[in-house]
């Protein structure tokens, strides 16, 4: 009893902070899920599950505390502890480990000072390579202890002393990593573009998946779904996937790419660019559901497609990069299905639409209304006969209306321009400044110009 009321309090607080709460049980468990990732993203993902998923909350938070204590980032430990203190006060992890905090903080401070002194030494010696490495060390250290802004600055300073393309690459990769953690999508994209612009002969192939995945995540973060889909779809599956293990798994790529493509591409593109793509197919094999949803959409079986997606939704809502966009993306897919469904008809009963797309017995009518209002669907609802009627354009009437409108507009504009010419020719423009004074001045000037 006590545990559940603690959870309730925790989630009501999360909700007030704007977090998305997921009550359904996802298809994975925390242990196996987080095993797929490496590096700092593990903690971020655990925390996200902790603050969003009701069934997995405690497990995830406990894992987050352990994860934080494995590293040196005191801020992260504090954040995880804050959460678990509210959500599960009876767990052993809910007790604050002050000794650890203190010792880690001291060690961190000492390390920072040491690295700074070292860097100062390099600077005095004016050895470029050493300065660059010094900056890199400081950056890595700061990133590890959670001072991301300072870390980004340190990495940024590396750029002054680069001497090979490899160095530029390192620098940009560090910056991308920090920017991803800070959710600074603009900086993610600009830095990753610096990498893709490089001419690296050998490692090019290995880097391509990393570049495209990061680019895709950045574009997804900025809500540019179409571009993001294109980026994900271009990921070369032959390259080394290890290079982005700290970022996303092949399963993630399949879901991101597949769903975004479903939301933004037309039937033809879905077939040729997604299902028939030799490179993306490897990813889709990890997630057969997504693959099935796409082929169902292509075959016009929209309700089946949507029900598969519904099952996927919970998992997506617990994904670090997808969470904020799930609602929009799923809505788009749903709308697309409805529109596609309606295309061959001039008139459909609301009942059949309800059967195909109805959610929990609610009528689809209001959803259709909002779609028409947004201009997504060109149709009218006839709520007396319970029909959705396609707007049949009468091209002749349209042409006539257009012709008249153009004529009227032309006439009006011509008149107005003539009027303005004559206003100016008569010297009647409004002039700046105090009216009375200026008018005298203005008239005086006119008089003198006439005299002259």
């Amino acid at each position, binding site marked *: 009893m006590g545990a559940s009321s603690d959870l309730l309090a925790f989630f009501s607080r999360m909700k007030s902070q704007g977090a998305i709460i997921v009550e359904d049980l996802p298809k994975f468990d925390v242990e196996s899920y987080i095993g797929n990732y490496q590096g700092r993203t593990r903690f971020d993902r655990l925390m996200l599950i902790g603050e969003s998923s009701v069934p997995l909350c405690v497990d995830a938070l406990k894992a987050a505390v352990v994860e934080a204590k494995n590293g040196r980032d005191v801020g992260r430990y504090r954040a995880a502890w804050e959460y678990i203190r509210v959500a599960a006060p009876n767990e052993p992890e809910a007790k604050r480990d002050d000794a650890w905090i203190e010792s880690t903080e001291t060690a961190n401070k000492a390390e920072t000072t040491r690295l700074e002194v070292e860097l100062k030494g390099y600077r005095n010696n004016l050895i470029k390579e050493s300065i660059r490495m010094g900056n890199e060390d400081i950056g890595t250290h700061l990133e590890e202890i959670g001072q991301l802004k300072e870390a980004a600055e340190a990495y940024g300073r590396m750029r002054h002393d680069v001497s090979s393309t490899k160095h530029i690459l390192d620098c940009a990769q560090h910056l991308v990593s920090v920017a991803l953690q800070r959710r600074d999508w603009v900086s993610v994209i600009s830095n990753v573009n610096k990498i893709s612009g490089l001419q690296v002969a050998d490692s090019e192939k290995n880097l391509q998946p990393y570049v495209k995945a990061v680019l895709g995540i950045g574009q997804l973060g900025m809500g540019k779904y179409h571009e993001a889909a294109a980026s994900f779809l271009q990921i070369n599956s032959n390259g080394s996937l290890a290079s982005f293990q700290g970022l996303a798994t092949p399963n993630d790529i399949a879901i991101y790419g597949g769903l975004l493509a479903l939301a933004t591409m037309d039937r033809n593109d879905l077939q040729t660019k997604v299902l028939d793509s030799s490179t993306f197919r490897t990813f889709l094999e990890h997630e057969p559901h997504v693959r099935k949803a796409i082929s169902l959409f292509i075959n016009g079986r929209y309700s089946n497609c949507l029900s598969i997606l519904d099952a996927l939704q919970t998992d997506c809502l617990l994904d670090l990069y997808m969470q904020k966009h799930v609602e929009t993306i799923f809505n788009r897919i749903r709308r697309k299905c409805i529109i596609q469904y309606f295309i061959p008809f001039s008139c459909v009963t609301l009942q059949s639409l309800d059967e195909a797309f109805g959610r929990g017995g609610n009528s689809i009518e209001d959803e259709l*209304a909002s779609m*028409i*209002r947004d201009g997504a669907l060109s149709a*009218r*609802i*006839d*709520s*007396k*006969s319970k029909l959705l*009627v396609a707007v049949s354009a009468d091209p002749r*009437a349209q042409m*006539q*209306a257009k*012709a*008249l409108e153009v*004529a*009227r507009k*032309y*006439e009006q504009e*011509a*008149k*107005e*321009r*003539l*009027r*303005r*010419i*004559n*206003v*100016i*020719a*008569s*010297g*009647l*423009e*409004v*002039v*700046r*400044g105090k*009216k009375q004074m*200026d*008018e005298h001045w203005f008239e005086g000037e*006119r008089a003198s110009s*006439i005299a002259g």
Partner: protein
Amino acid sequence: MEHLSSVLKSYPPASGSSTSIKQQDEQTRVYLSALAKLTSSSKKLILEQPEAVLKLIDPAKNSIGYLFVLNTLVNATELRIGRSSLLDAIIVILLSFDPIQVRYVGNLLLHLLEAVGTAKLFPPRVAVEVLAAAMLRLDPNGSMFTSTHLLLANYAYETDCVEPALKVLERDITTYPIVTQKEQRLYCDPELPLTSTISVQTGLTAPVKAATVLEYDFVRGLIYMSRREWTKARKALERVIAYPTKDKGVSKIMVDAHKKWLLVGLLSDGEVPSFPGYTSAAAKSAYNATASSYRDVAALFGTTNAVEFVGGIRSNASIWLEDGNKSLIQEVQVAYQKWQILNLRRIYREVSMHKIQEFTSSGETGEPLANPQQVVSLVQRMIENKTLKGEITVGPEGENFLTFQDEQEWSSEKDFAREIAQAHHNIDMLSQEYKASNERLSGHRDYVRHVIREQKRVDKDDSDAGGFDAQIEDEDLMNDIVHHG
């Protein structure tokens, strides 16, 4: 009396149609000087026997003489004429004067018009009617602005007697008096363009300033608002806000007009109006700085968020009051729900009253209407006053439905052909006006100066280039001069 009579009646000479323009002009000027030379005893005679003197002259044939006599009477300190006879005489001359003759005595006519428009001689309806008729007599197209326009608009608005003024107010004005108009042709030349006949020189208009023009269109806007003709009001105000400016100038009238324009735009189109393309940047920034609360409310008008809309209106109540726009805001509040209902036609072909009640809220309270009956009566009113094209039908379960009908303005091909022909005709007329303006402006000194400067520049460029052709040209020029010299 006889001398007076012979002088007055000496015009127009009964020589028929063969007289040239030059002769006509000469005769008119002779007559004018004869009138001016009338002795004071003759003038006294006019004052003593006004009715008899007026009877001597036919106002339609000899407008100059009639105006002269009338003017003497109106200016007199003491009147020997019955008020009704004087008023009759004024009406007669204003309705029948000769538009060419009055060019010689424009100041007399203008004086009379101003008297009618300000002196409360007539009941407002008559005064407005007579003024409008006289103005159209001077300029049948009504396309030339005069000082009398503002007089008429103001008078009609203040006396709330708008109807008879509309025939002037609805004309599109395209020409304005030119202060420095120099006309070499004779006044009685029937070919003379409007800018030469209705000018400060002929006295048919007083000098006009920018503020006069702005105020005229502003008052027109107010007049249409009082008639609830929102689209016309919006267009009138649009002229004010997009008025040509110079040196980043913005007039206060323009700023005031912009506020009203925003609200009237909501009433006429149901959405925030957009600036005409030719609005000056300085004016736009001034508007944005002065009308932020209006903009906020206007932006909320198009949304379904009635609570916020009403809140925005209530929290700025003092601003509306201060700007004198309180009643306009009330109109906007009333129109809010109507436009919400109208917008449903983009979604529904038939919609139940229940849904209307659910989807739309009153702009006065921010709440949905209390029951479907109120919705029905609101929709009924909208259909009756033609804001909404549709009908109320009853569904199978006894519920009321609103069925929207097509918006098309014409029904047959014939109607369409007529509309297009009308538009074509209008544009043809316009192109004539354009030609006239072009001709007039080609002779404008600024333009001529510009052309000369351009020519000099081109000449200079040529000589700079120093090409072979240019040299040949030079030689030819020399030859020419030598030859003629």
